């Protein structure tokens, strides 16, 4: 027999579940440092540029600190939605598509009223954005419930469909009529005050999407710890058979999880397009829908964990841009770095689910 054995714990260890994300971050820094060294950069300087300088550097800090919230908000908002489904074994991996569709529908509603100055425009856009994402997520939801179609594949295929819609909207339906024929919509953030998602407190990066992300964290926390539906989500993930016997309706749960994650992703898209991105353009989306999957796992599918993970992941984005600027580190290295983080985390999960035993097993 092997010298090292794994022994399943009766229930996952709370201690290890809490400590593994920290260990995974440290392991990623070490492995990432080695990667940066291979790329011909000073590893210590690269890690410092990514994790320290955006927050504490005298010159860059004031510029990058607000960016932290701007980048973290969509990641947290999307990841909170995804985590509900992931807990219940419902895999929505097409958040990127729901994010795009939310942005298109929300911006479309806003642009339809141009140049109105009503205060109702922006709330209406947020609702429309949420609806766009919800409707896009309902496609895999409905197909799963009605026909048992795999939601992983359908939601992902719809990302590519959404990207085509985005290209079409940017060049056709939503194109700026005063834009001399260039693709891209009117700039919501600059030229359309009633539809713009501006900073609430200037200099902090705090926009309405950040507020929504915080609300989502609290909402998810209460749902999971205090509410029947949250209990059913957890039960379905941990013991699907027991869940069925205790009267959980799988169809309802699937539609709830996919719908919520779609709506949150759609709102995230709307906040992005009306604020930081400014306009519907062919490539306004920057892969937040996929990175949010890493955020959800890094946060252990736990609302508070996701809040922290979102901030950390935002830091790697900002620090990555800084490292690109200062050290000429390729942008893809950061993407790789984020992927590594997920791998280390999954690898270390074994510690919370199993005990490691050395030596030969005792005879039974």
């Amino acid at each position: 027999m092997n010298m090292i054995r794994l022994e399943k714990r009766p229930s996952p260890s709370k201690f290890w579940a809490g400590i593994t994300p920290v260990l995974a971050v440290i392991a990623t820094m070490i492995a990432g440092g080695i990667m940066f060294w291979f790329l011909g950069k000073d590893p210590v300087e690269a890690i410092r540029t990514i994790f320290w300088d955006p927050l504490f550097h005298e010159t860059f800090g004031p510029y990058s600190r607000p960016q932290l919230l701007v980048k973290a908000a969509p990641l947290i908002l999307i990841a909170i939605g995804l985590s509900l489904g992931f807990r219940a074994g419902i895999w929505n991996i097409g958040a990127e598509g729901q994010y795009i569709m939310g942005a298109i529908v929300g911006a479309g509603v806003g642009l339809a009223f141009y140049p109105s100055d009503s205060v109702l425009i922006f709330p209406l856009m947020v609702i429309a954005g949420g609806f766009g994402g919800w409707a896009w997520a309902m496609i895999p939801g409905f197909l799963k419930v009605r026909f048992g179609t795999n939601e992983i594949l359908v939601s992902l295929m719809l990302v590519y469909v959404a990207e085509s819609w985005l290209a079409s909207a940017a060049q056709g339906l939503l194109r700026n009529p005063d834009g001399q024929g260039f693709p891209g919509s009117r700039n919501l953030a600059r030229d359309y005050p009633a539809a713009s998602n501006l900073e609430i407190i200037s200099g902090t990066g705090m926009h309405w999407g950040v507020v929504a992300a915080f609300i989502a964290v609290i909402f998810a926390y209460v749902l999971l710890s205090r509410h029947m539906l949250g209990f059913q989500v957890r039960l379905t993930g941990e013991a699907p058979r027991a869940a069925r016997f205790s009267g959980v309706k799988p169809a309802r749960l699937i539609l709830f999880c996919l719908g919520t994650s779609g709506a949150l992703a759609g709102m995230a898209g709307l906040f992005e397009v009306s604020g930081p991105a400014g306009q519907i353009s062919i490539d306004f989306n920057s892969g937040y829908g996929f990175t949010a999957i890493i955020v959800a796992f890094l946060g252990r599918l736990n609302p508070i964990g996701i809040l922290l993970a979102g901030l950390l992941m935002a830091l790697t984005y900002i620090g990555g841009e800084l490292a690109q600027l200062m050290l000429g580190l390729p942008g893809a290295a950061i993407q790789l770095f984020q992927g590594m983080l997920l791998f280390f985390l999954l690898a270390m999960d074994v510690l919370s689910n199993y005990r490691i035993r050395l030596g030969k097993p005792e005879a039974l």
Partner: protein
Amino acid sequence: MDLTQINPVLLIASLMVAATPILLAAIGEMVVEKSGVLNLGVEGMMIVGAVVGFAIGVNSGSPALGFIGAAIGGAALSLVFGLLTQYLLSNQVATGLGLTLFGLGLSALIGKPYEGMKSPVLGKLDIPVLSDIPVIGPIFFNHDPMVYVSLLLIGAVWYILKFTRAGLVLRAVGENHEAAHALGYKVIRVRLMAIMFGGACAGLGGAYISLVRVPQWVEGMTAGAGWIALAIVVFASWRPWRILLGAYLFGGVTVLQLNLQAAGLAIPVEYLSMSPYLITIVVLVIISARGQHGAPGSLGRIFHASS
């Protein structure tokens, strides 16, 4: 619009070329799933295969070496997935997704210096006599060697799964890993080999895109081909010959919409380019509406031998 520009013979011939990357990736993934493992990292392994194959092809001037390198690259990446899921017992869905995200980043990093370069040309096998037959010749007997390799692979997988002992063990492990373990089969070893075979196939499929189909390196160039390969495995109900059918159907849709774009059909380009994905969804719905036949019993379940 001028539909007469579309030449049916060339259409079928180019359909086979368009289908080959997906065919290669799908047959590999089918073997992985037959062993009871769901690897959602096909897209990541394909894109890494694409960039490794292209880089080696350009540097050595030999597309054949590029393909070999791509297969090794894909298998190496899949080994990461294998170690995580088989020894560290991680969740297969999450690990597969991670593999895709990781592969996209890794390929972008490796591929940066190769953007805008041309790959060496993989010559066509001009099979004498046969390729001169009108209609049939250009359709079947005038392709590059990889098209035939992919077809041979389908046949080989079908034969091995159906008629050999190794195939029987693989299927046993996939259907019921506890029973297979009790019979003394090395579940984890079998699965690791299947995973690496899947990775090598995905790598070949990716390299076919960057070395033959496009032939250039563009970041993110697989554009969902790996996911479509996963869908085709479901469509095929885990049967090799149906993989061939599914991949060629999909290749047909892709080539047809490209031809329609070129012919200047009145439908905007965006709607045509989303059509392959929409048709994949429709096909998935039809298959699932009939009930899932043939999914291996232990698919996606974690195997942990407690004794």
